[in-house]
């Protein structure tokens, strides 16, 4: 009771006149102060890498003083290094990411449509085993994936080890396990009456799927594609095991080459590359913030 009594007049005062700094500090001020500290904590590695990328020379000593120099030399150098073709990696990453995300979202949309709209034997079992399949982390399969791709490469060098198409196929293998169940939920939210109406008007199943269902979940498909794009472009393990030619690298495997050699670490170029590589992903993330949060509470974990 006492608490409530204390609370009521304070709210009243707040509306009537300005609070003193002390009152501000007590109510929300300390939250702002701690918030600023947290922002600093969250931001400093990012600020550091941006600052480093703007230093003209490759001297890690100087770069510790943040934002003392501004030069785009590193960014220029990044595009003029024939042994480390950054532009190629960037393009590779985009191509692999786009192919995989579009392909796997399409595959899981097809499957989700079947699970949501059609009734068949093994439907429940199929859905359950897809959820189970999700629990097997692809990292554990690296040895087998390597073996499989090396076997395929013995017959078709264009599809086996060191092939980007092969890598895309491996990523697509995870499509059903990764996206179907989520999309199944979204498909279920579309009223069946719409399908029935279309059927009465003479539409076949393919027309319903492509022109009605897919159109209605288009925003969800887009978000799923972007999430899958972010996931694929951040993958290091599979890309590092399957690709070993510098011209085929993705950003995840390529950028490492700037700092992996202990005797010739090139932090300036690396940081410039990092900034450029991170921009699209961070932008996508901020843009998708709302969807990602709801997806998270739905049980998805960023891989």
């Amino acid at each position: 009771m006492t608490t409530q009594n204390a609370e009521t007049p304070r709210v009243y005062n707040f509306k009537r006149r300005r609070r003193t700094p002390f009152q501000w500090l007590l109510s929300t001020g300390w939250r702002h102060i701690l918030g600023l500290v947290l922002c600093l904590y969250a931001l400093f590695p990012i600020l550091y890498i941006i600052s480093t990328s703007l230093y003209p020379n490759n001297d890690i000593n100087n770069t510790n003083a943040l934002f003392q120099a501004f030069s785009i030399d590193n960014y220029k150098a990044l595009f003029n290094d024939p042994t480390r073709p950054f532009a190629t990696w960037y393009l590779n990453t985009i191509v692999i990411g786009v192919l995989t995300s579009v392909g796997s979202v399409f595959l899981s949309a097809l499957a989700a449509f079947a699970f949501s709209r059609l009734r068949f034997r093994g439907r429940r079992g199929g859905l359950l085993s897809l959820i189970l399949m999700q629990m097997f982390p692809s990292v554990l399969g690296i040895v087998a994936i390597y073996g499989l791709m090396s076997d395929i490469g013995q017959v078709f060098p264009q599809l086996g080890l060191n092939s980007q198409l092969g890598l895309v196929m491996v990523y697509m293998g995870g499509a059903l396990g990764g996206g179907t169940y989520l999309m199944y939920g979204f498909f279920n939210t579309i009223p069946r009456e719409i399908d029935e109406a279309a059927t009465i008007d003479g539409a076949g199943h393919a027309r319903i799927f492509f022109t009605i269902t897919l159109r209605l979940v288009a925003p969800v498909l887009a978000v799923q594609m972007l999430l899958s794009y972010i996931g694929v472009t951040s993958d290091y393990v599979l890309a590092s095991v399957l690709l070993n030619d510098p011209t085929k690298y993705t950003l995840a495997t390529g950028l490492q080459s700037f700092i992996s050699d202990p005797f010739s670490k090139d932090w300036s170029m690396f940081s410039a590359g990092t900034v450029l590589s991170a921009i699209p992903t961070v932008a996508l993330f901020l843009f998708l913030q709302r969807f990602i949060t709801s997806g998270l509470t739905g049980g998805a974990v960023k891989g």
Partner: protein
Amino acid sequence: MVEESKQKTKQKKVRDERPTTLAAILWKIVLLGLTDAVVFLLVLVMVGQERFTESIVTVIVAIIINWIYLRKRGLPAKYLAPGVLFLIAFQIYILLFSGYTAFTNYSSSHNGDQALAINTIKNASFRVIDGEDFTVSLVKQNSNGERALLLTSNADGQVYIGKDGKEKAVVAPGDYTLSKDCADKYAEDKTTCAHAAYTAKGFTPVKVADLSLFDKNKYLSLRVVLDPAKSNEGIKTADFSSALPIETTFSFNEKTKWFTALIADDSGNYAAGDVFKPGNDGFYHLNGNLKAYNLSGGWRVEVGFKNFVTIFTDQDLRKPLLKVISWTFIFAISTVLSTFVLGMAVALLFNHERLRGKKLYRSVMILPYAFPAFLSVYVWAGLFNRENGFINTVILGQTPGSEANFPWLTEEGPARLAVLLVNLWLGFPYMFLIVTGALQSIPAELTEAATIDGASPWQSFRLIKLPLLLVSIAPLLISSFAFNFNNFTIIYLLNKGGPADSSVVGYDVGGTDILITFVYKIAGFNGGTGQNYGLASAFSILIFLVVGSLSLVSFRRTRTLEDIN
């Protein structure tokens, strides 16, 4: 109206029995036709390489696909088939293959089947002798597709065409083209390769990068006759860029599948005339005796539970393995706890109705999560640099460049602390987001009622909010645990699992290695030696069992948690 719709239902039923429109039929024909054309090409290539089993499997799969899409019934299969095809090839097959590999001795020296191993041994059993050497270009004869070597003498620049089992034949100067650039772009000496011929009239040049293993082996086994009187001498290429005069060191009996040494080994391991027989360990051994000398180049054989026995009984493995396992659990549990506590604290801090700029705070807090993890881990590795890193020199105020600075990453304890700190930074935004979401779903009446009943803020948090939070977040904590249990990125990219533990013999293991990075190293993917895929697979299976059963048990627990609600 009712009449009309009934009529339409009837029409629909009729329509359902055959494709509705012309467009649909055309699409079907085009897509199926394309699929079949691709399959036909694949099978053609496989048959060309004598891969008959694989060809038959492919044809059967193609027939099933055609059957699914051509028949009128079985609609679900039409929607499921494309995804299931990839699922079978790259998930289910991978699972089964992992399981199978765990029971084999698959490794870099037992790679492929016995036929492949025989081929490898054959191709490697030669000794270079004195004579003219050549620069080589791989070609195919246009008329009959015969593989041949285009040889340019390194002595006088004379160009020859060399075919298997025949003597080399001179190519007239006008009939060949010199290569425009070196095969090796970065070669310092461009003079030798600039003068080599790369194609000749009637032949097509072949790029090594485009060759399948089958074709490579065909080129490797190609033997140009040097002297018709000496059958065991010839010219061959071993590296696709040069060809040397050689003599054969082993003969192979196609019937018995035995190798016989023609020349004694330089280091005295075997004498001329010694016979090598295949052993059940996937190697050719002297007289078939498993303990005797073996030829390099083996094949995959099943070894039963040997890999699992190694895991549980190998004395060299025991100490590092126990260390790795305990650290894996410590790492995963402390990561989940630390990120959850910090994430929840941040969520509670910003979950205040009168707080301004909540959106801005939220966008900043999400940044570590939005920044690609592999990049931030590299950045942190730089920040933790011992001599000049930002953390040592600026935050801890130590001397720049000094080797006496705090040994983040170079000593085990600090390296483990660094891993946890980095993962805290990477992981707390995720927890912040989900806790914020969960907090907002807790009805305000509950806390208000508690306040009226005289509960302190701490009491209402501990007794009301926290239990409710845990109910909705526990499954996510468990999946976070499972994710971190196999969190390869942070461990391997921060410090490659290091610092390396020099006290361990026979295995490459570091102070921050978790199981999955240890497996990666056993498989030799880090560029190390060994490449024991069999043992690595056995580990993968065990990890899967651990993670899988933990998840199952915990999900059961969660259900009881929900019952409380």
